[in-house]
């Protein structure tokens, strides 16, 4: 649980999101922001080491009054009431709602889950309750809920509104055919589906990665199977349902006269399709163009991260060693080689670990490179070893960035890097005893932490926790799952 005192709950909505676009902005290449906003005499809002666990993104602005945020975001009031409750990412099956409720109430989580499923099957509306909770209750280690972001997502709201005719059709159908059960059951489920759209569109980056990589494959049931089998399965399931429906209709209404209202229903549906059809089409088209835009934005993000890590870093180094022409030449030459490799051979710059096969080698390269470039000691401790995957290379890139940050800003002569290979994940810690900073005071769009570390890790499902407070050094904790499906992740990103 995050410390509440002194840290107002401030919705960490990036400015871009509030304006309706989700394009990342790169204002400043400045990486690490060691600020001294905490006055020496005052109790620091974040206490090293364990209580200041801050998971990015978090732009809770310690210096702005809480009401300033509350006025802009209506979601805050709801958040306020439920602030004791957070969804749990550790034990989540779906959204972590039951886990959070279990933590808040003390009821066994399995019992809650069974209750939710049974109640959902019996009545339908608990499904809607669950979806609402997903939106309103923030994730643990996050300060804002999805709702506060969703209310600014106009396109998503339009999509959900477009679902309303579908609900209406179902209701008409149901009332005509007198199947009250489905009507009772159908509308909350349909509304929950609508909310799910908003949730998916407005989930935070780590949660969206989780949804894309864990939840979606789970729902599409055996995605490894060939496409044809899935098609056959779907078509036969549909045919079975249609046949069943037909049988029910004919059996339930012995006289053909009863089929007359059915014809009416079909006509109404036709009318609705004619009226709303073009609108739906345009929505689908919008969605597709938005997906393209998002892919483009992601590519831009990656490119910016690469340029930041390689070119901008080198330029900074060159400025610093202006009185050492030999070093300048060496840096410029190395940078030139790297850029050429990127432009003409497709090798991403900023990736130094391409020659390494094992994690240990990669860590060694990292150590040498930083010791050579920045003149500090990197003390490396490695427990275990494993072959490098794309995800682990991303972990090394993020670790390199964290170490460079420490070298540049902390003022400490030595940085400790500890990596441990566990059964399911690789843990990596970068720690310095330098000046430290207030993680809550770093604007979320700072390139160094936001893109080069956080986004890089999130792309492969990794997690980043930064612990620091002014005067007490900094520790960046990174964990990268050793999943085998990391290759699929890469393909979706590079395409």
């Amino acid at each position, binding site marked *: 649980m995050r410390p509440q005192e002194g840290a107002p709950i401030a919705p960490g909505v990036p400015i871009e999101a509030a304006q309706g676009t989700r394009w990342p902005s790169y204002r400043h290449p400045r990486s690490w922001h060691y600020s001294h906003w905490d006055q020496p005499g005052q109790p620091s809002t974040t206490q090293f*080491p364990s209580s200041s666990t801050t998971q990015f993104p978090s732009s809770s602005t310690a210096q702005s009054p809480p009401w300033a945020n509350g006025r802009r975001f209506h979601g805050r009031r709801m958040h306020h009431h439920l602030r004791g409750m957070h969804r749990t990412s550790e034990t989540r099956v779906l959204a972590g709602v039951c886990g959070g409720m279990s933590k808040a109430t003390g009821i066994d989580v399995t019992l809650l889950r069974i209750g939710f499923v049974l109640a959902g099957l019996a009545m339908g509306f608990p499904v809607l309750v669950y979806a609402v909770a997903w939106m309103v209750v923030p994730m643990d280690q996050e300060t804002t809920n999805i709702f506060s972001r969703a209310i600014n997502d106009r396109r998503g709201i339009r999509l959900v509104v477009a679902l309303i005719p579908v609900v209406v059709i179902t209701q008409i159908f149901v009332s005509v055919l007198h199947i009250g059960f489905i009507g009772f059951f159908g509308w909350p489920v349909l509304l929950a589906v609508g909310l799910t759209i908003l949730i998916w569109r407005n989930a935070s980056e780590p949660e969206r990665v989780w949804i894309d990589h864990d939840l979606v494959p789970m729902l599409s049931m055996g995605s490894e199977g060939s496409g044809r089998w899935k098609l056959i399965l779907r078509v036969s399931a549909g045919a079975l349902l249609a046949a069943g429906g037909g049988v029910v209709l004919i059996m339930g209404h012995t006289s053909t006269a009863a089929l007359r209202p059915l014809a009416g229903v079909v006509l109404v549906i036709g009318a609705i399709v004619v009226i709303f059809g073009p609108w739906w089409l345009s929505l689908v088209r919008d969605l597709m163009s938005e997906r393209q835009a998002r892919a483009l934005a992601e590519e831009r993000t990656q490119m910016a991260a690469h340029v930041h890590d390689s070119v901008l870093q080198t330029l900074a180094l060159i400025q610093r060693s202006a009185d050492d022409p030999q070093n300048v030449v060496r840096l410029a030459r190395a940078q030139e080689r790297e850029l050429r490799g990127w432009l003409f051979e497709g090798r991403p710059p900023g990736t130094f670990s391409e020659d390494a096969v094992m994690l240990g080698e990669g860590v060694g390269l990292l150590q040498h490179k930083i010791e050579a470039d920045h003149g500090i*000691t990197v*003390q490396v401790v490695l*427990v275990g070893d494993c072959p490098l995957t794309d995800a682990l290379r991303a972990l090394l890139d993020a670790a390199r960035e964290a170490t460079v940050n420490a070298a540049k800003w902390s003022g400490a002569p*030595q940085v400790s890097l*500890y990596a441990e290979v566990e059964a399911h994940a690789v843990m990596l810690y970068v*720690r310095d005893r330098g000046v430290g900073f207030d993680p809550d005071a770093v604007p979320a769009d700072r390139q160094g932490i936001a893109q080069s570390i956080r986004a890089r890790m999130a792309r492969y499902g990794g997690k980043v926790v930064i612990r620091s407070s002014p005067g007490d050094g900094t520790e960046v904790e990174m964990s990268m799952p050793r999943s085998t499906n990391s290759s699929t992740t890469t393909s979706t990103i590079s395409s």
Partner: protein
Amino acid sequence: MTESGRPRIFLVEDHAVFRAGVRAELGNAVDVVGEADEVAAAVELINERIPDVVLLDVHLPGGGGQAVLHGVLPHHPEVQFLALSVSDAPEDVIAVIRAGARGYITKTISGGELLQAVYRVAAGDAVFSPRLAGFVLDAFAHSTAIGPDPIAEGGGGPVGAGGSAGLDPELDQLSPREREVLRLIARGYTYKEVARDLSISAKTVESHVSSVLRKLQLSTRHQLTRWATDRRLV
């Protein structure tokens, strides 16, 4: 200790420059009672002067740091050894620890930290550098004791060289708490920071570390011996 309470230190190190550096760094906080630059002279002088702590270079002409340990500990088990090296290769480190050194530090250590380490060893506690913690975690990987914490029965205390190979299964495993402590040390935490992070006293951290040292010295654990064999230690 001398009457002044300062620990009596003996330096075994083949580089005169480094010896001078250590002397300067430790300054007046300790009494340096002697120096040696090779094994035979070191064994003779240490047995004669019986210092509190010997700062022992791992790479020493004439048999390495282990030879000094083997030459002194059977006669004077009360002498504490703190190993120093530049290389940080696991074989060196584990070998001197198993030969009876109470701690291991690298030569990049700062003056203040070195002094702290000397005091700690003089008091009979163990000194783990982050590297050593990493090696131990590696050597004891994939086994976590579920039984009671061995600290409860008061582990620690000086251990002689090549102690009797006990069949105690607890020697072959680290307790979860010991693992936590080692992990934090490997991450670069000082004992004080470890204590703060785990909400335990610094004394408890020390006893955990001493217990790990004892296991490292006495364990006949299959994995540990194999790990050592792989690195040509045994």
